[in-house]
């Protein structure tokens, strides 16, 4: 029995961490959605400067142009008296949120969940404006206005078969964004009060939850409302101390646990004859029920194919076979299907779904199945022979669909189709969780096939992250001592000459035990545990040593930039260490550039200015890295005395996005930087046409795969100086 108890505990813990994982992802998505919106607003704000927008008419066309891409309702302008105007200049009244108005007046970015605009409650996300006047009225802020439901799409990503839902609350429990999921409970105005008035699971306490939330903790609580048990998982999210609460009916979570417990009981031989009889009875009645249900629940009324229930049954059979191939569960989603529905009508869209389902079904191998889960979402059980093979299959389905449409329904336009892939290594996982994970995969960065297909494979990264972090932490000190951290240099090419005009020093971890570990994996961890300070200085010293070496050998090095984590900046005299090292190697003025990330700008702009002044005083140049990725705006940059602005790779990552939009954004940043006598570096540039564009608009440097990847120092020397360091040594 002790084993049983242990198992139960394990399952509870595991379910808990799974729920937490889902909630964390949703939270991260919300954070990202909000960060993206801020970035958009800041970009528009800088556009207003560069394009010298002076009238509502001009502003309205800008707001209109971006509306479809970003899904906001309108962009409202707020003047210095707090008076608000729709983008076309119509006065509107902002109502009821003193916190929001305080922030607007204090010129801070802010989100309000409860603005009444045109009589509808809206979420407004505001950034301060500086020096913008429209039709003669000076504007203090600009706010993108969203329908709460547009946030809800982010909230409802984890469906657990459509039975879970999420909401956002203040720390005191009052509601910020409600869920509009059909599965959502009416949680009242104060969700914590509602939970407090329900019957809590034994051992769970609302006070403990409040205490944990007060310290930005996360966790879960079990409770029952109207006889239905739920788990509520809480996670802090970035904006304004809000909290995400994700509710999952206990029955969904526990179905897996129950299954495992049942198996244990059998194994332990505790099962009595009576239990066996009960099982027999259940099996009997379920087989009887199955026949009855088959008729009503197995044929999908839209596609004529399988319903999700039938899919589960069939897929289960495939997964239960011994010697089965490796399978994946694929979840498909058609982008903006609702819009299509409106555009072409429900019937045409149903036809499209049927066609899609039939095409896939015809191409399936034995043991593979498809079922429609909901609306435009299908689940496919498919053999997994690696990603390339799946890509091929997705592409062929899409080609077939295109051919069909071309021939039969020339008026249709096929939507973008997304495929989320969960590779099934544990067939015991309930389908609902497989589906959730396949969906989750899509929320990460999906890959594209020809602009019309996106796909992504779920990996267990988040779940493994903690273990992994521990592992890396155990390794890092020794790795440094043993020289596993290597300095790579990525050249920056000067435009228009397209010759190397500088480089950025980056770190690689060539682990003896694991091979190459990439910075994405260890940098965030080191920032968390503070080891980044040691590592940055190590890299700095390596760079100085290298520069000294070049100078001593009569070479003329160009400016090299090194990253300086925001963790350093927190300590007042952090530059002393840099200065000491630079002096030790007698590095000439301005050969070193210190890169600060944009996030510091946001955290404390006063401190940042101090830091930059110190950097200059120490004889280094200073650049702002990742510009455009986050919250800062060009307005802020005006007051920051940096030498270089590095445009975030986000601008160049996705070529399929409207190039004219990218161009206008980048152009506005570059021209502002020029006006402030700052140099600009475009990072993450991958394509020649992007380089052309950057050249045209006057960007100073390009750093990206289009020219060169980060490379070991020796390779860089070869590239930059046309000499082989070793040869050079030999000659000597």
């Amino acid at each position, binding site marked *: 029995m002790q084993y049983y108890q242990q198992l139960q505990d394990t399952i509870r813990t595991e379910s808990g961490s799974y729920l937490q994982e889902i909630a964390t992802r949703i939270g991260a998505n919300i954070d990202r959605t909000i960060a993206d919106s801020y970035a958009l607003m800041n970009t528009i704000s800088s556009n207003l400067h560069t394009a010298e927008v002076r009238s509502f008419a001009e502003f309205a066309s800008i707001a209109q142009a971006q509306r479809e891409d970003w899904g906001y309702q309108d962009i409202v302008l707020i003047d210095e*008296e*707090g*008076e608000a105007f*729709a983008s076309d200049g*119509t*006065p*509107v*009244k*902002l*109502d*009821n*949120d*003193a916190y929001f*108005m305080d922030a*607007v*007046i204090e010129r801070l970015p802010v989100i309000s*969940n*409860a*603005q*009444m*605009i*045109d*009589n*509808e*409650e809206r979420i407004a996300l505001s950034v301060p404006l500086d020096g913008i006047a429209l039709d003669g009225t000076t504007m203090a802020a600009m706010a993108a206005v969203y329908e709460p439901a547009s946030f809800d799409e982010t909230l409802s990503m984890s469906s657990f078969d459509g039975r879970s839902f999420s909401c956002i609350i*203040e720390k*005191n*429990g*009052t*509601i*910020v964004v*409600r869920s509009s999921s059909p599965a959502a*409970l*009416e*949680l*009242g*105005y*104060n969700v*914590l*009060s*509602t*939970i*407090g*008035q329900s019957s809590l699971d034994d051992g769970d306490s609302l006070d403990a939850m409040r205490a944990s939330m007060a310290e930005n903790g996360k966790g879960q609580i079990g409770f029952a409302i109207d006889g239905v048990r739920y788990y509520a998982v809480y996670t802090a999210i970035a904006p304004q101390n809000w909290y995400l609460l994700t509710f999952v009916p206990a029955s969904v979570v526990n179905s897996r646990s129950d299954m495992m417990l049942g198996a244990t009981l059998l194994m332990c031989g505790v099962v009595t004859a009576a239990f066996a009889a009960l099982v027999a009875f259940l099996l009997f009645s379920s087989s009887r029920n199955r026949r009855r249900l088959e008729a009503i629940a197995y044929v999908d009324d839209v596609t004529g194919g399988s319903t999700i229930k039938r899919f589960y049954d069939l897929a289960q059979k495939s997964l239960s076979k011994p010697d089965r191939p490796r399978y994946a569960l694929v979840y498909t989603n058609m982008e903006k299907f609702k819009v299509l529905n409106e555009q072409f009508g429900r019937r045409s869209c149903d036809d499209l779904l049927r066609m899609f389902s039939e095409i896939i079904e015809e191409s399936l191998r034995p043991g593979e199945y498809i079922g429609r889960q909901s609306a435009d979402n299908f689940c496919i059980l498919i053999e997994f022979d690696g990603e390339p093979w799946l890509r091929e299959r997705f592409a062929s389905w899409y080609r077939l669909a295109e051919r069909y449409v071309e021939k039969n329904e020339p008026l249709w336009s096929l939507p973008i189709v997304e495929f989320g892939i969960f590779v099934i290594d544990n067939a015991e996982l309930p389908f609902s969780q497989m589906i959730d994970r396949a969906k989750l995969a899509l929320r990460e960065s999906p890959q594209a096939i020809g602009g019309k297909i996106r796909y992504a494979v779920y990996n267990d990264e988040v779940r493994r992250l903690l273990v992994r972090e521990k592992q890396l932490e155990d390794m890092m000190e020794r790795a440094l001592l043993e020289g596993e951290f290597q300095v790579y240099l990525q050249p920056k090419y000067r435009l228009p000459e397209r010759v190397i005009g500088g480089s950025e020093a980056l770190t690689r971890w060539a682990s003896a035990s694991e091979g190459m570990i990439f910075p994405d994996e260890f940098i965030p961890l080191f920032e968390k545990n503070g080891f980044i300070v040691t590592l940055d200085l190590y890299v700095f010293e390596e760079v100085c040593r290298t520069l000294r070496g070049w100078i001593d050998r009569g070479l003329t090095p160009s400016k090299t930039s090194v990253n300086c984590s925001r963790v350093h900046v927190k300590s007042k005299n952090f530059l002393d260490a840099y200065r000491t090292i630079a002096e030790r190697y007698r590095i000439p003025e301005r050969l070193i550039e210190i890169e600060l990330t944009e996030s510091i700008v946001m955290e404390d702009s006063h401190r940042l200015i101090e830091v930059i002044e110190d950097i200059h005083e120490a004889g280094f140049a200073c650049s702002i890295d990742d510009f455009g990725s986050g919250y800062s705006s060009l307005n802020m940059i005006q007051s920051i005395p940096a030498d270089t602005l590095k445009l975030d790779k986000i601008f160049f990552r996705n070529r399929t996005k409207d190039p004219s939009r990218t161009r206008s954004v980048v152009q506005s940043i570059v021209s502002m930087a020029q006006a402030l006598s700052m140099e600009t570096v475009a990072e993450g540039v991958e394509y020649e046409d992007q380089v052309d564009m950057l050249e045209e608009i006057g960007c100073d440097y390009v750093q990206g795969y289009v020219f060169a990847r980060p490379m070991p120092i020796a390779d860089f020397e070869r590239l930059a100086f046309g000499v082989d360091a070793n040869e050079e040594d030999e000659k000597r």
Partner: protein
Amino acid sequence: MRPDSPIRAKTPLMRGALAALLVATLLFASVACTGTEARTDVLTQKTEDPARVQVSVLVKYAFSINGFEQAIEEKFPDIDIVQVGNYTRDMGMAEYEARLEHGDTTDIVMTWPYEVGEQYWADSLLDLSGMGFSSRYNISALNEISRDGALYYLPGPAQVRGIVYNKTLFEENGWEVPSDFDGFVDLCQSIEKSGMRSLQLGLENAEVLDTAFTGFGYAACYAKPQDERWIEGYNERNATSFGEHFQPALDAFQTLVDHGVLQAGDLEVDYAQRENMLFTRQCAMVEDSVLMARMGESQTGTTDEFSLMPFFNPDDGGDWARLYPVCYIGLGKQVAQTGNEDVYDAVMRVMDYLSTAEGQEALMSDTGAMFSNLIGVGAPDVPEIDDMRNALSHGRYGAFPTLENAQDALREGLAGMVRGDMTSEQVVELVDERNAQTFAVSPEDETLGTASGDFSLSDTGGFVADALRAESGADIALFLDNGKDGRYNGKGISGRLYRGDVTMTDVLRILPDLKHGETGTMHVVTMTGESLLRTLEYAIPVDNDQTGWFYYASGLSMTYDPQAEPGSRIRAVSRSDGTAVDPEATYTVAVMDQTVPDDCILSCEQHDRAIVDIVVQAVRDAKTIAPAQDGRFAIG
């Protein structure tokens, strides 16, 4: 800050409904309302059905929820809504605050949308924040009401108000609804030229002066978030001068005066008269709601059509609608106590219902076009507000705030501007001066004596009557009850005294708000025994046709049955010494003026002492007062 509160006279429409109610069998129900001790008071005069759960609803001041009551009772036949009024001075606010302080709330309270008695909310009202129905309201509206994450009220709907104009008249004369302030002034002048008053606000009711000041100065002085802060600062005496912020509103007001839109004669016209003027084509416009726009025919038989236009503000201020928040809706904490499960279940159903579009509709049935705070309900859609739609759909609407310390001064000043004997500079001076005045202790907070126990309503009525009888030396004293079930006479008791200090405020809040021209002084009348009995049976008619009120008495002992028709309600009556009332004999009776039927009075000696003073004196003299509890008023 509070929205100002124009008083609407009862209308024939309402009267009809009330008369219908009156015809219904009346009932004396022995219901312990709530509170610290059981007592016997009349809660309702309606028929009681033991199968139905009674849910008491405190209805603010003279507000009626007859339409809502009917809708609830149709929807939930097992629920009997019992309206409890508090038709006392100061819009019943002091009375409501006392109820909150003493935990003497009804099951449901529908109160003013103010912060009245905020310090008692947590003790006396149920926190609604964890109840599902609160999910259906706009979060912004709830944020406004909530305190530390708790929610003691749901926001009721808000009435849409504007300039009500005679549409038929406009069409006949080719007058058109303007599109800006200048156009509005021009329109008024054209109307005045035709020999008719243009806009008649009825400025005799001083609070109506606010309407013009705020309505036409809204964009410049009230609409922006900064404005709210400025007013808050001024109320806290942090801001410098009234004129610094409000000059644009004063200027707009002056413009209206200068162009004859507001006239000195308006100061002699009261709220009810201006309504009559509108319906009889003596003026073209008033300020009111859709309810008013629909009332013409029933009021005067006019076939003219009426509609609403917004307040056009000067310069680029745009058009604004006025929202008049009608009420907050809360629950008395006692409904959740053990033993009250039936009531709890019933009130939850009521709250759930009123948190639906249908329920909001039902709430609005008593007040015309309303702006609901329920998600997805929003602005009303009736043809009378077509001209307001532009303002409403762009959120250009708002409740009219007032100054905390100096609104009266502002009203005095505005009246001066209308009369032409004050300039806006003088108004600023007057308002600033008043705003700066502070009173260490309000005279109304003065403690007069102590109550040794909680008084019931009949104890309180008996105490007032005793005071009158003692003061006058009359044989008998009578004092009216203020009415039940959504029908109120405005002449009687509707608040009670509680254990502890009795202050001036307490005396003022148990006595009626005098809205029918009563002086509130004591008269000592003589009447025959027969007339006395007739008085007790029928009382006086109020608003033409409402009779059947009842009195609290001193010098008499009664067993009273309002279930019976007026005329056969008195089961037993005797003088307090046990002797019978002799129909032939003549008695002296102390009463408040205008509270007994004229045709019952043989002679009348008018004392000029205010009843307030008499009661104050009685408390002071007694130092400690106690409920008489001598059984003089029995229900039978």
